[in-house]
Structure formats: structure tokens, C-alpha cells
């Protein structure tokens, strides 16, 4: 296992051009650990991710991907190690980063009895976001026509689109995505590609901001091209950490053994 951990976090370069004031890394993990009773859900994970980069996390089910995402989202407290997100140490300064993070997990985090519009408006109010943005996003995910129907009447794919809209509603600096394309049909995938992408496209308001992203994936082929850094987890432990160019198929297959 140790031979796969090719890179230490210090050797990963920041992609931004050299400037007198290099911005602090968006993510800094050192020995991050979280237990679940006697089991180690996530053990001793260390990495640094510069702002605007994309981290792709690979691993089989139960490897700790969801735990990692929830730790980054401030939903879980670390049990050991250092966790610094967007410049703030968690869990002490969690209040400073909430609202700058968007999470798309396995659950859509939406109320089935409410319509997409009502759900998004609710989240908009919680984040202090203008209601007009709700309409923009409903348009962007192609749900303006069905925005008045209760969510329970929509298919899983459409619900996923609403969930994505919810995750990016407040234009987060850090986007945490757990298999975002799950349940989406090809039309849906195309619609959301921009919304969950790295951002920085000047024309679209919705993706103007460059985002740091952490993407949990079961589909390395589709997601590795977008990665700046790849983390492989196995049974909660850090099995590999490398740039995509340094990976080979064997290393990845090893993770899923």
C-alpha cells in the first residue's frame, strides 16, 4: 500500500501563476482522522489542495469517501489531525466557512412535499440569497416548467437536478460532490456540467466564480480528466495521492480490490 502513495502533499504544485501573494490553500488536511466506534472511518489523511483546483477521490464503497466529504462540509467533527478549509480551522471556526461550501451528497436534502421552487427558495432564505437566483437556476437545470409540482412527483433524475441547483445556489467557493451524475440522463448531465464544473467562465453568472472542488467518483474515466489531484482511499486509509499524470491503471484497480 505504501508504494502507491507516490506523492507527498508538499510536491503538488499550485496551478495559479506565480504572484507575490499566493493565496492560502483551499484545503489543508494533516493526519485527519474520524472514528465510528471502534472502526476507523477515516484514518490519517493528509493533503493540500490549492484554491481553484479539483480533487477527485476514488475508492470502493465504505472506503471513507462520504466521511471525508462530510468532514469537509463541517457536518462531522474531526477526531484527530488538522483540518483547514478555506483558511479556517475546523471545527472551531466552522461558522466562518458555512455558507461558502456547497454539498451534493447521496441525499438530495430536499423536502418531497414541497415543489422545486419552494425547496430552492427555502434554501435561498437560509443562505441570504436573492430569490431571483432561484429562478435562474431553475431555468439552468431545465425545470422551470415543473417547478410547481411537489418533488415527490418528479423522477430521481429530475430530483438530482434540483439537488444540484440547491448545492450551487449560494455560489460556494468550495463544492463537494458525491457522484453528481448519478441518476442523471444525458440531457441532465449536459445541463449540469457547467453548474458543477470548475467555474471561471466569464459569460455565465452562475459559474463566474472559480471553485475548488472535491469530487467523489466511481467513474475514474469520466472524472480523472478534470482532476488536479487524485486521492485514493481504502478502508478509510490514504492509499494513494498523486497527480493524474502520475497514475496508472494498476494503482487505481488496486483500490477496488
Amino acid at each position, binding site marked *: 500500500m505504501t508504494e502507491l502513495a507516490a506523492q507527498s502533499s508538499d510536491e503538488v504544485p499550485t496551478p495559479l501563476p506565480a504572484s507575490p501573494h499566493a493565496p492560502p490553500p483551499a484545503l489543508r488536511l494533516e493526519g485527519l482522522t474520524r*472514528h*465510528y*466506534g*471502534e472502526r*476507523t472511518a477515516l484514518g490519517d489523511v493528509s493533503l493540500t489542495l490549492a484554491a481553484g483546483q479539483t480533487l477527485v477521490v476514488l475508492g470502493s464503497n465504505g472506503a471513507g469517501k462520504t466521511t471525508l466529504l462530510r468532514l469537509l462540509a463541517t457536518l462531522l467533527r474531526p*477526531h*484527530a489531525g488538522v483540518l483547514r478549509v478555506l483558511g479556517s480551522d475546523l471545527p472551531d471556526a466552522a461558522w466562518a466557512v458555512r455558507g461558502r461550501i456547497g454539498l451534493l451528497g447521496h441525499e438530495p436534502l430536499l423536502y418531497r412535499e414541497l415543489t422545486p421552487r419552494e425547496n430552492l427558495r427555502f434554501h435561498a432564505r437560509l443562505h441570504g440569497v436573492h430569490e431571483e437566483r432561484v429562478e435562474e437556476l431553475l431555468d439552468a437545470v431545465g425545470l422551470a416548467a415543473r417547478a410547481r409540482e411537489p418533488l415527490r412527483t418528479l423522477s430521481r433524475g429530475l430530483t438530482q437536478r434540483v439537488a444540484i441547483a440547491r448545492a450551487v445556489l449560494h455560489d460556494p467557493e468550495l463544492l463537494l460532490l458525491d457522484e453528481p451524475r448519478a441518476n442523471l440522463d444525458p440531457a441532465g448531465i449536459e445541463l449540469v456540467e457547467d453548474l458543477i464544473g470548475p467555474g471561471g467562465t466569464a459569460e455565465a453568472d452562475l459559474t463566474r466564480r472559480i471553485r475548488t472542488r472535491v469530487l467523489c467518483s466511481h467513474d475514474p474515466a469520466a472524472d480523472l480528466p478534470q482532476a488536479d489531484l487524485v486521492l485514493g482511499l481504502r478502508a478509510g486509509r490514504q492509499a494513494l495521492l498523486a497527480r493524474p499524470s502520475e497514475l496508472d491503471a494498476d494503482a487505481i484497480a488496486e483500490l477496488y480490490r
Partner: protein
Amino acid sequence: MPAKSLRTLSIATVAVMALALALVFFYAPLEAEQGFLQKIFYVHVPLAIVALCGFVVGGLFAIQYLRTRDPRWDLRSYVTIHMSLIFAVGTLISGSIWAKGSWGHWWVWSEPTLVSFLIVFLLYATYQPLRFAIEDPERQARYAAVFAITAGAFVPMNFIAVRLSTAYLHPRVLGSTSNLPPQMALTFLVSLVAIALLFATLCSYELLAKRTRWQLRALRRRLADEYPLSAPRRGRSAAPAHYEVSA
């Protein structure tokens, strides 16, 4: 608690209990109305006081747990509440015997201590089922702490509320603890100390037993990591299990 001071505590407890028994049977005068049966007062009221304090202390330990997240505080809270529940049952039983002896019924609603304890018992009887119903040990400890704090604050308020509700119905039938003649007062005090020491000793023993079990499990786990045999999984209990938390 190291073994030596535990032994000292145990010896002290036995000594004071023996003294208390001696005082109760040979020193304290017989009460005019109720006769010999009244002596159960020296068991019933100290049990009640110690149990009440135990519940409140359990709540205080729970506050400490929430502040420090150290699982040892959670263990102390659990043991204290557990023991207080047992003492509360003792209070109910001794009070019931007393009621039967002097009033003819196994239960009287006019004795506020007894009634308060019934309510408190019903509340704390849910503590272990609550713990048992939560699988994640860290969340179990946290929720149990919230319960312990809420219930600990409830205990004195409940006492007052029940007192208020019975005060204007009947006068206290089983006697109060004020205006005791000096001999009775002394016996009462010694009994109180004896029961309090008993509580502390039993809690210390249980804490020691549980902490030893933690260490045993940690060792077993380390052994299982090195020699991966399937370790026998015991059934779950409501008691807190040790889990790794950064100090």
C-alpha cells in the same frame, strides 16, 4: 481510582455503615407513634437524598462531557445515574414498606417524596433504553449527556412541584426531617454519611470494572489487528464503550 484508595474507601464505608446500624438499633429512641417501624426512616430518607444528589451530579458530569468531549466523563455520568436509579428503587421500596406499616397501604399519594421518586424513576428508566437505541458511540454519549442534563435539572423542580401539589391536601403523614430530637438527628446524620459512602464505593467499583473492560477491549482489538482472527462479538450493552477520541 487506584486500588489502594478504593480499598480505604471500602473499609471506611463498612465501618460507618456498621456504626450507623448500631446507632439505629441501640441508640436512637423509639418514636412514639410508629414504634420500631419508624426506624426505616433512617434508610429511606438518606437513600432519597443520595439518589437525588446522584442524579444531579450525573447531570453535572454530563455537562463536563459536553465541554471536554472526554469519554471518561460520559462514563462517570452513566455510572452515577445508573447507581442513582438503583438507589431510587431502594427509596421506593423502603418508602412503600414504611407506608404499609404505618398507613396500611403499600402506596400513598400523600407522601411527596415517594411520589416524586416514582416520577423520577419513570424518567430515568428510559436512560438505558435511550443509550441502547443509538448505535454510534459518540452520538450515544452526546444524546445521553443532553438527557442527563435535562433530567438532572428536572429532578429538583419535580420535587418542588409535587410538594406544592400535596401540601395543601394532607399534612405529611410519614414525618419530616426537621425538629428531630438530638439523638435521632445524630443517627440520621451518620446514616446519611453511611449511605453516601456506600454510593461512592459502589460507583467507584463500577467505574473500575468498566475501565478495565475498556482496556481489555483495546488490547483485544490491537491483538485482532495483528492477528486477524474473528474476534467474538459480545452483545451490545447500554454502557458506554470506549472509543478513540483525541485528548
